């Protein structure tokens, strides 16, 4: 599994499509994205681990980094952000390759991508 992360609007899906030699419209066949939003619905660690296992069955998993701002005042938002970060760690551990996008430019954090 290839895990792609990066800030909002950093070109993650465009990069995934390029990697998979498909259009962004076809991406849904191979990849899941915005998985950080799924983390919020997990009740605890077991749930989160099970989610990571399920997601890791996809060839490509994409998550947006959301942990870079001020700690949210709202309790639910705080928990969601926490879960998103931990899910990303679980996915990165399961991935053969981890790529971070920044302004459309990829940096390989783990493994390697074919040139």
């Amino acid at each position, binding site marked *: 599994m290839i895990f792609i992360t990066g800030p909002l609007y950093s070109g993650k899906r465009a990069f995934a499509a390029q990697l998979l030699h498909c259009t962004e419209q076809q991406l849904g066949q191979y990849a899941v994205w915005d998985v950080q939003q799924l983390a919020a619905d997990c009740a605890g660690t077991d749930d989160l681990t099970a989610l990571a296992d399920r997601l890791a069955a996809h060839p490509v998993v994409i998550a947006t980094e959301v942990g870079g701002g001020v700690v949210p005042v709202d309790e639910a938002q705080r928990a969601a*952000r926490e879960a998103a970060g931990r899910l990303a760690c679980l996915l990165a551990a399961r991935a053969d390759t981890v790529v971070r996008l920044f302004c459309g430019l990829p940096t390989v954090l783990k493994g390697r991508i074919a040139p």
Partner: protein
Amino acid sequence: MMTLVMGGAASGKSEFAEQLLLQSGILPRYYIATMQPFDEECRLRIEKHRQMRAQKRFETIECYTGLADLHLPQKGAVLLECMSNLVANELYSPEGAGEEALSAILTGVEQLAAQSRQLVVVSNEVFSGGLDYAGDTGRYLRLLAEVNRKLAARAHRVCEVVCGIPQEHKGGWQEHADA
């Protein structure tokens, strides 16, 4: 040559960008300032920075919107700061391009690059804090991100300044070190 310098608030991106142009030795040096002074705090901050840059022989030129119409007296070293302000001005100011903001900005940067021997553009990394913003901020973020991606694709070098230290994302930093 065009360089894109990214970074969060107070990451040291401005200083690093200035250093790049100082090291190039290219004269004259122009600083294109995009921050519109809305209050006294802004004015004081701008004046302080203007004086600091004058000591480094940067001539400050203000440009809040309509970058494409800017004509520099000579071809030199140019620092454009900050893209986050220019995007906001083009999007929200009455003089701004509004819906045409993206093309106005990209055309403006191309015009500026054509008038520069070295161009450094500073922009802001504000995309890692989630999307829980009120009102129109999402539209602003999408536009700024698109400008950043387009500039990153166009630039010869891209770096992200973290605690004053540049992390390279693209380009031949070494080969241009003495250029």
